[in-house]
């Protein structure tokens, strides 16, 4: 992707302010841009924008760049940035908040397996109350890149022969109460 210098008119500072009102995102505007987050992030070398840059983009209001980035999906939620941030910004929660908005507006990179996994995971839990590893991975692969199933075959066999591959589709008994709780309302 080619990076371009931005026009001020592309920014939406109002959006930035709304983000900073969300749970976990309060510290957004106190960021020093010190880069401790990017330095400690084990995944920053794979990201299109480092965590520090994502924070910079968000607080200036460059919504589309932040929401369509791969960065937010590569965040593995290890919270290393959060415990290292000198301003105690909950960067992991900022990432979560961006992920939710990207899902809500379908701005995530197409066929990128991470958001696909997240969606399939939620579907499974919403329907059955629990996740079942085998079925989850199968659904994720079929929806993103079925060829990875070949790569996974060997690992699957290793798990099967050590009794670690359960084909059971887990389900909780009291699904009624759970689905009542989880009834979707807002996406905000």
């Amino acid at each position, binding site marked *: 992707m080619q990076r371009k210098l931005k026009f001020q008119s592309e920014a939406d500072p109002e959006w930035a302010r709304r983000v900073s009102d969300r*749970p976990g995102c309060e510290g957004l505007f106190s960021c020093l841009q010190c880069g401790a987050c990017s330095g400690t992030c*084990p*995944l920053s070398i*794979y990201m299109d924008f480092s965590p520090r840059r994502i924070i910079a983009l968000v607080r200036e209001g460059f919504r589309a760049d932040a929401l369509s980035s791969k960065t937010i999906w*590569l965040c*593995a*939620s*290890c*919270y*290393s940035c*959060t*415990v290292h941030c000198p301003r105690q910004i*909950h960067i992991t929660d900022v990432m*979560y*908040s961006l*992920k*939710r908005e990207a*899902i809500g507006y379908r701005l995530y990179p197409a066929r990128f*397996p*991470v*958001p*696909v*996994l*997240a*969606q399939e*995971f*939620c579907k499974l*839990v919403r329907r059955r*109350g*629990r*996740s*079942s*590893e085998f079925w989850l*991975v199968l659904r*994720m692969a079929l929806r*993103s890149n079925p060829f*990875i199933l070949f*790569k*996974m075959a*060997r*690992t699957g066999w*290793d*798990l099967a022969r*050590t*009794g*670690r*591959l*359960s084909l059971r589709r*887990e389900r*909780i008994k*009291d699904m009624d*109460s*759970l689905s*009542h*709780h*989880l009834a*979707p*309302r*807002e*996406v905000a």
Partner: protein
Amino acid sequence: MSGAYGYFPGCSLKGAGVAYEESLLALFRLLGLPLAELEDWNCCGATSYMSIDERSAILLSSRNLLLAHKAGYRDVVAPCSACYLVLRKAQDYMERYPRIGKEVHAALGDGDLKVLNAIRVRHPLEVLYTDVGPGRIRQSLVRQWHGGRVACYYGCQMVRPYAEADRAHDPMRMDELLRAAGVPTVDYSLKTKCCGGSLTGTTHEVGVRLNYALLREAARKGADAIATVCPLCQYNLDAYQREIRRASHEPFDMPILYFSQILGWALGADTGALGLRRAISGRKTVQQWFSERRVEKEAYA
């Protein structure tokens, strides 16, 4: 019910992490600490649910906390680092954000938030450290360790912002417990670096290389095995080692154990009950280290 710990296994301990459950139950039984599984628990939501729907993510946890409360447990033991973090994070959110607290209250109907937040969500490592302690472990040793040196890998979520299981930057409790059991541990500088979690399944190459770094550093520090506290860390390091070996041209064949397997064995649990046969990497080493024959010979310890 009082006195017993409520036990929240989470989905992984019923799947790829089944050895963790087996060894943990055996270990806690030996120590006289009953773990009672919560009836009809649901998934914690892991890292995925928060990425889709915040309200529901918190609600999933609050239902589990409510189950624990109704069954009369004050402490809930969550061995999976993701479950542990998510349950604690839900409590933190319900307390800090009144809007979320109100929504949870409305959805649960009968869930008093104070009650839900009073439940102590605990990691088994922390339970063993504070409620049992290295001293009692040392006194109750039944078998003497004759295996190699171990790198204690704490992973990320167990020691991060919502946690009290150990220090965030330099956790030592697993080292202390294993040393009390006579197991030499090495100074492992990547002990809180992330294994990538589910990235090995989604962006495979990225996840595999993270795990390469973890193995490489453990080997460099002279470790013969890695001890873990999380089913996902164990799975990633164990199941992808063959692939890492092939890609890196480095001869890794390291057992990836659960700390509960080592402690359980040292305290005299039945070797067959610790899930040791479920190892994928370093199987020969595991067999040697935990062999029955040598156990009996050295049972005088």
